């Protein structure tokens, strides 16, 4: 992969990340330098803000005389999240579980909020099929029963969840084939989407099937925007574990685009700082998200993740959010949780407004952003009481940060804190529990950088015998994970296993282990 190869496909990459307040975009050159960056307000329809941020960085390229030689555009977006939260644009899903007579005590979607279930479900059935933990069939697959169920529903897509499919997927595959051949409907199969834990995996599979239309809209909007700007770049979407997938892949697994923001900001922080083991604080306008980088990847949460009131077993970054941001309102004896949010540039004292914010308190304490020269003078002469209030606010904020860092650091004090986000200047020069505070350049757009530099990945979660055949079986699982990474867009010659977790299982006839493998690699050129 010489520079020649880069030149042939374009030298630039654009990363775009849609956040709650702002949509950020960056352009990286072939040497991974930031050559353009922009922040635009996130719009209610998401697409508007995305187009504005993209247009802004392209205009900056034009101004600097850099050709629009863009090979790839990577997008981390909240389209899917918003669709679920607002029950908007969701497809009707035929929900099929294979496992009867097992599992009937808790039918599909039992724990869904009524309004989401009404918006999504075209009908639910628990039919014979699925497997035991040891791979035996619970019952044979009844294809006619599947047909009878599908004949009786009006659906845009089908979601199929088989008991123990992460270990034995053949029934799910057979149904997917039947649906595609005979009904021509898109199908979500649970073994491609989640890990063990039937109800959580089923929920994610149904959400995935409901989001096919939304995924089409996102990829359509992105393709349209690229065409409008005369770009021939290949588009990618960011997913919740900090890796990328092609738009074709995203069209099949739209649910994994949910929650990509925190992962992008963690990966961007690792890239910009050059530190791969660190605590990361992303300070925004309203809140600060803390996460942990281990070997350059986000540490994942052990707890189940809820999306729109539905429990799923996604592996998401372990994030601790605290109510502290640049727009956090300061009162006599309290800091936040209220915030002026995106109105900070009108309301904060340093911007000529009349609300005392954390930005003002930080500036008074001599903490100013790189572009904040002269801000301190704007605060003018104030009473001693007022200066006291600001000092107390800074002390309180520093204590909040120290407490949050301590919660996330798991007792290790040898790693630095990487400060990113538009409000990173709020953080003190020294924080207890970390070896130092790193403030990389371009930290305010770390999330968009994270999208631009992300790898493609694949993962497998299954159960294997613990005996002599174990090592061979694990090799096969590694190959499967690598194949999935390649399917998501990774370069097959540079895929590596980045995570391997083995957990022994108890109370089984044959000793067995649960194995989780993740493979990742740079995008194929």
């Amino acid at each position, binding site marked *: 992969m010489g520079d020649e190869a880069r030149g042939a496909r374009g030298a630039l990459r654009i990363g775009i990340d849609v956040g709650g307040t702002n949509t950020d975009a960056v352009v990286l050159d072939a040497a991974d330098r930031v050559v353009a960056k922009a922040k635009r307000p996130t719009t209610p329809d998401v697409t508007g803000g995305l187009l504005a941020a993209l247009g802004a960085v392209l205009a900056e390229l034009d101004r600097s005389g850099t050709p629009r030689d863009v090979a790839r555009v990577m997008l981390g977006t909240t389209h899917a999240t918003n669709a679920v939260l607002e029950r908007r644009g969701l497809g009707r899903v035929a929900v099929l579980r294979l496992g009867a007579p*097992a*599992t009937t005590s808790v039918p599909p979607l*039992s724990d869904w909020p009524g309004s989401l279930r009404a918006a999504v479900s075209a009908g639910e059935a628990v039919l014979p099929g699925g497997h035991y933990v040891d791979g035996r069939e619970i019952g044979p697959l009844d294809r006619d029963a599947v047909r009878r169920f599908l004949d009786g529903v009006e659906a845009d897509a089908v979601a199929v969840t088989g008991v123990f499919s992460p270990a034995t997927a053949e029934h799910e595959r057979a149904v997917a084939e039947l649906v595609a051949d005979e009904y021509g409907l898109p199908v979500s199969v649970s073994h491609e989407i989640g890990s*063990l834990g039937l109800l959580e995996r089923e929920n994610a599979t149904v959400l995935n099937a409901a989001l096919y239309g939304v995924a089409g809209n996102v990829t359509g909007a992105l393709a349209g925007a690229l065409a409008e700007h005369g770009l021939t770049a290949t588009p990618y979407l960011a997913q919740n574990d900090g890796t990328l997938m092609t738009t074709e892949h995203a069209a099949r697994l739209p649910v994994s685009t949910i929650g990509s923001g925190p992962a992008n900001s963690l990966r961007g922080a690792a890239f910009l700082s050059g530190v791969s083991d660190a605590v990361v604080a992303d300070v925004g306008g309203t809140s600060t998200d803390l996460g942990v980088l281990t070997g350059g990847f986000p540490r994942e949460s052990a707890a189940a993740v809820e999306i729109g009131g539905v429990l799923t077993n996604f592996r998401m970054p372990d994030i601790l959010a605290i109510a502290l941001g640049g727009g956090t309102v300061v009162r006599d004896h309290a800091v936040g949780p209220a915030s002026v949010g995106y109105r900070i540039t009108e309301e904060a004292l340093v911007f000529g407004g009349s609300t005392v914010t954390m930005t003002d308190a930080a500036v008074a304490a001599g903490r100013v952003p790189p572009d904040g020269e002269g801000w301190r003078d704007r605060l003018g002469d104030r009473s001693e009481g007022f200066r006291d209030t600001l000092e107390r606010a800074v002390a309180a904020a520093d204590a909040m940060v120290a407490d949050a860092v*301590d919660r996330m650091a*798991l*007792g290790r004090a040898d790693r630095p804190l990487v400060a990113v986000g538009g409000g990173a200047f709020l953080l003190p020069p020294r924080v207890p529990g970390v070896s130092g505070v790193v403030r990389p350049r371009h930290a305010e757009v770390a999330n968009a950088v994270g999208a631009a530099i992300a790898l493609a990945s694949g993962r497998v979660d299954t159960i294997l015998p613990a005996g002599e055949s174990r090592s061979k079986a694990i090799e096969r699982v590694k190959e499967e994970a690598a194949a999935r990474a390649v399917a998501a867009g990774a370069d097959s010659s540079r895929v590596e296993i980045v995570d391997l977790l083995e957990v022994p299982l108890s109370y*089984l006839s044959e000793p067995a282990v649960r194995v989780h493998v993740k493979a990742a690699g740079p995008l194929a050129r």
Partner: protein
Amino acid sequence: MKIQASDVAALARGCAVLGTGGGGDVRTGALAARRAIQEYGEVPLVRLADLPGDALVVPLSGIGAPTVSHEMIHGEDEPRRIAEEIERIFGRPPSAVMSSEIGGANGVAPVAWAAQLGLPLLDADGMGRAFPEVQMVSMYVAGLPADLVIMSDVAGNVVTIRPVDGLWSERLARAVCVAAGSHALMADYVLTADGARGAVIEGTVTRALAVGRATDGAADPLGALRGELGAYELITGKLADVERRTAGGFVRGTATVEGTGADRGRVLTLELQNENLVAMAGGRILAMVPDLITVVDTETAAAIQTESLRYGQRVTALAWPCDPLWRTPKGLETAGPRAFGYDLDYVPVEELAAHG
């Protein structure tokens, strides 16, 4: 009183608190309970005194591997087949369902099983908390013979075991469970109402409900929970370390809590073995099994299972007295500190607190 769908959340919270860190996740059982009440109607909660002397009470529990129970959930017909087998053996149908273990998953799932059978739930259980082994039940302590086990699996099989003693009961039931895919429903010690008197721990469903409701909407959830339980607060602080090791088929471990606020400078260590078993601070024991020790989130007072303990959590450890049955010589022999391998003479938590 009848258990309604709206009671299930409080019951599940209470069962988690009585689970002393173990007993399994209450979520799936709570979903099954709500669904069964909606489908089959509310579940009457009856006292032993409400039942005729020869009425049959079925203690039910799910057994198997936790990983399997989260994937291959119970079928809806499993309780019915056990009830049919009981009728075949005894010549009359059961009159009530009982939870074998009020702490954790097996405390809330019996609501679903009772609803599916159209039977009332007995306001009692066999532990008053959670324990890891099958023989650690009040029926065993009371000297009832372990001579009948009925199991029902997802495929529809029913297995009746007539073991010669508790050891065989455990050994055979485990073998059947493994063959059935490592997950089954089990009836153990089928009782008459007369036989159950003194052999079960009464009032525990009502207690779990009250414990769960105490924190609901409370301004001070921790204070409300402590008051409802009559619990001693062992420490409030931060989880500083959790060490886990697998030994003898059970996960053992030690959790360390560093005191904060008024407890600053104190350190509590907690010995774990599926459940929280022994609490120590400053070289002194503060509470030990079979008294109940539960770690809760300091802010919400929600119980935290031993497998979910993580560094940095802000927690409070609470301890309170067990049922008097566990303090008898046979009770302590069955589930006292020595039954778990700790070379300790049992001292009730209230005496330990009085000397603190």
